């Protein structure tokens, strides 16, 4: 009985830590993105609130929270609110199966830096990824606006196409590691000493595509398309209700999918020991943020695709490549 309570308390602490760290990081990623965008675009970015504009996310948060939020008269209220929950919850749940470091023991208890090490972690990830589309669809439907509706329809078309490719691109890694547990995949990479990006470069590129599409970043940000749809599915939300959508989609999702890419292809927390016990975490965060940086960099450089182009690329080009990649991996594994 005591064991159970202790494990519950530990899990609770882990959940709080993850929530605190990643919601905070999500907020500060806005600062980072604005600063980065500023420098890409030959301007300064936020610099007035606090040193280097570091308090800007706080100011934005206060602004969003204190804003009057307006709900359209003909909105479907329960669904309208449900959409907010449904977009935020899956992206937070994604973090629950991501391992940030090796096992460690504190006071004799062995602790894994992962909320729940389940052996179906990848399937759980896909489930959550697919669930996120409901947030978009509900918000588009419930706000009773044509712009929002078209935006959410576009997004769901993209999600459906790219979920398939995401699944197939990851399958190669699963074949190599022989497990669906995220911890298992990282440990398999450490054991063999080679990151899976070496064996699966094609899958990695496909994964990056899916990452952009799932998180709605340029060049796949058709659901927003501010020039056509006036920011699309979240146009009728205001205040923090609006703030949740970019937070979940642009920041939490990007971070979660980058972390997943690190786990699957870049050897997770592995790396030379430079900082003693903190070294694995530093490596993990470094790898994750270099991917996040890559996404932001693309966002502020490229134009955007059309909806029909995105789905066309997915079904006609990426899906055959992904299938071929899986088959090749399986055949090679069988022969070796």
């Amino acid at each position: 009985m005591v064991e159970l309570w202790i494990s519950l308390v530990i899990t609770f602490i882990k959940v709080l830590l993850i929530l605190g760290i990643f919601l905070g990081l999500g907020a500060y990623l806005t600062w980072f993105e604005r600063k980065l965008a500023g420098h890409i675009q030959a301007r300064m970015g936020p610099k007035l609130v606090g040193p280097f504009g570091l308090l800007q996310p706080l100011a934005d948060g206060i602004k969003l929270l204190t804003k009057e939020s307006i709900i359209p008269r003909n909105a479907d209220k329960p669904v309208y609110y449900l959409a907010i929950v449904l977009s935020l919850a899956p992206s937070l749940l994604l973090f629950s199966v991501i391992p940030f470091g090796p096992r460690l023991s504190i006071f004799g208890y062995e602790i894994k830096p992962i909320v729940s090490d389940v052996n179906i972690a990848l399937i759980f990830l896909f489930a959550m990824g697919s669930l996120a589309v409901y947030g978009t669809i509900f918000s588009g439907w419930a706000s009773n606006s044509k712009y929002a509706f078209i935006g959410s329809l576009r997004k769901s078309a993209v999600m459906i196409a790219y979920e398939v490719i995401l699944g197939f691109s990851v399958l190669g890694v699963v074949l190599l590691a022989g497990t669906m547990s995220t911890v298992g995949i990282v440990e398999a990479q450490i054991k063999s000493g080679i990151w899976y990006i070496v064996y699966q470069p094609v899958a990695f590129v496909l994964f990056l595509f899916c990452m952009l599409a799932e998180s709605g970043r340029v060049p796949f940000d058709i659901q927003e398309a501010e020039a056509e749809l006036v920011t699309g599915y979240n146009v009728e939300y205001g205040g923090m209700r609006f703030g949740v959508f970019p937070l979940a989609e642009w920041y939490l999702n990007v971070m979660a999918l980058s972390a997943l890419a690190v786990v699957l292809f870049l050897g997770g927390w592995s790396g030379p020991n430079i900082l003693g016990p903190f070294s694995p975490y530093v490596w993990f965060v470094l790898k994750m943020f270099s991917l996040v940086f890559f996404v932001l960099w693309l966002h502020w450089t490229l134009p955007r695709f059309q909806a029909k182009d995105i789905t066309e690329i997915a079904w006609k080009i990426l899906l055959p490549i992904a299938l071929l990649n899986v088959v090749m991996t399986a055949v090679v594994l069988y022969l070796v």
Partner: protein
Amino acid sequence: MPWMNLVVRERVKSIFKDANVQSDSKSVRIEVPKAKLLEFLSYLRQKEGYRHFIDFTCIDFPEHPHRFQGVYILYNPEENERVIVKTWAEGGTLPSLEKLWSCARWAEREAYDMFGVVFEGHENLRRMFMWEGYPYFPLRKDFPLEGIPEMELPSLTEVLEGRTEPPSHDYEIMHTKVATLEDLERTEKARLKKKAQLVLNWGPLHPGTHGTIWFLFDLDGEKVVQSDIILGQLHRGMEKIAENLYYFQFLPYTDRMDYISAICNELSYVTAVEKLLGVEVPEKARYIRTMFAELQRINSHLLWLGTGALDLGALTVFLYAFREREKIMDIIEGNAGFRLTTAFLRIGGVHYDLAEGTLDVVKAFIKDFPNRLKEYHQLLTRNRIWLRRTKDVGVISKEDVFNYGLTGPVARGSGVPYDIRKAEPYAAYDEVEFDVPVGEVGDVYDRYLVRMEEMVQSLRIIEQCVAKLEKLPRSAPYINKDHPAVMPPKEDVFMALEDMVKSFRIVVHGESAPPGEVYSSGENPRGELGFYIYSKGGSRPYRLRIRSGALYNLSIFPKLIEGGTIADAIALLGSIDPVVGETDR
């Protein structure tokens, strides 16, 4: 531009016996009876090569038995000749030309809206700028300039506190009519009968429309089944205003039409007025005008590039373009004193002499800008996403260019080398060297390339202007103040008695123009901006018609977007690049 030559005039006279051909140094005008009009115009189009529709408008003569006269301006691209065809609207009606030229539909709707002339055979004769149910025709001579006060619009104070006696502040209680929400709804319903799943509104305020245009899209999923445009949210009645002002007073109003390229507008306007008044412009002024018009063209194209890329999601290009734009704005501000609506040109010259150091700044800009252009090319030109969004979208055929009266980069993108700077050189364009870039396919990508190349050519022109201006002495005149209709520069007005008297006379009585008709146009960044001035003598134009390039270019939009997606619409609109101040006037 040369007008219809003598051979053709004689031929026309021999075929159409009742055609009344008049010609002078300013224009060639052919008057035909209404019954013969369609036959005559289709003859001109098919046999004589007058294929390019430039403009159509009406003039109101209240004392004439037929009252309204229709004026058609046509252009022959092979011979580079123009002609004006006129006809009286007997019984208040004219035959519709929509079978001959598709863009006549919009021009006729405008004439119907402004004059109440009915067009027989027009498929959808709706109001163009005013809303459905508006009872008056504003450009008729009996419509007062300030409108008819008949609607009570209380102030907010009155609504809250009730009307007081005496009134709380000095204002008119009765106003001229404004559209109510019901009116707008009726207008929307009248324009588009829903055929497919849902009607999507863009506008009147929408980030994609670059102004207050109102687009209606009938969508089947993402596909556009039909679309229409409701204009008039920025309609200020420029033509009516012009009829009530002296020639020099109207100049600042032209800034407010295509506010992105104010100096080009002014240049077109003063060229037309100078033609009417017969004013010679000194060499220095011509070169200053050319240089600033080309700077303004680069400025305008940069705005198009920035917003066009922004519409397609490339956020960074927007700020890069604005960085360069700011430099041009500085040059213009340093000389004209204003950034956007400059009012820099004057009839007979320019307002100020070149400010000190201008040429150095311009030279620095010329040196720096090609590198910036390279940056834009790197970001977009070979970008696969950009290609996918712009290639084969909104293809305009050569035939449609003439059919819809398209001009400017939109026409040149389709391979029609129609450039007024070459066809009818004004300012110093006949003395500088430049090429006219043309496209091949006529899609959005070609129009993009044409505009990018135009910036390079503008730079070439500016370079030559700078070289010329450096050679001219500083004391060279920048305004032709000897002409009786030209206002002397301000420093002379304060110093010399004759100049003061002359300035006083013009400000009070206006320039006295000879009677006559002038059509003159300039090559604006958005197409041909033409001014048709009908003068009966005196200091005010009897009728001043503004031929807007943006309006005619926009008229092909509903046709092009049919079958495209909503995302194509934004790319297409960006490539047509209308400015609402000019389409609505």
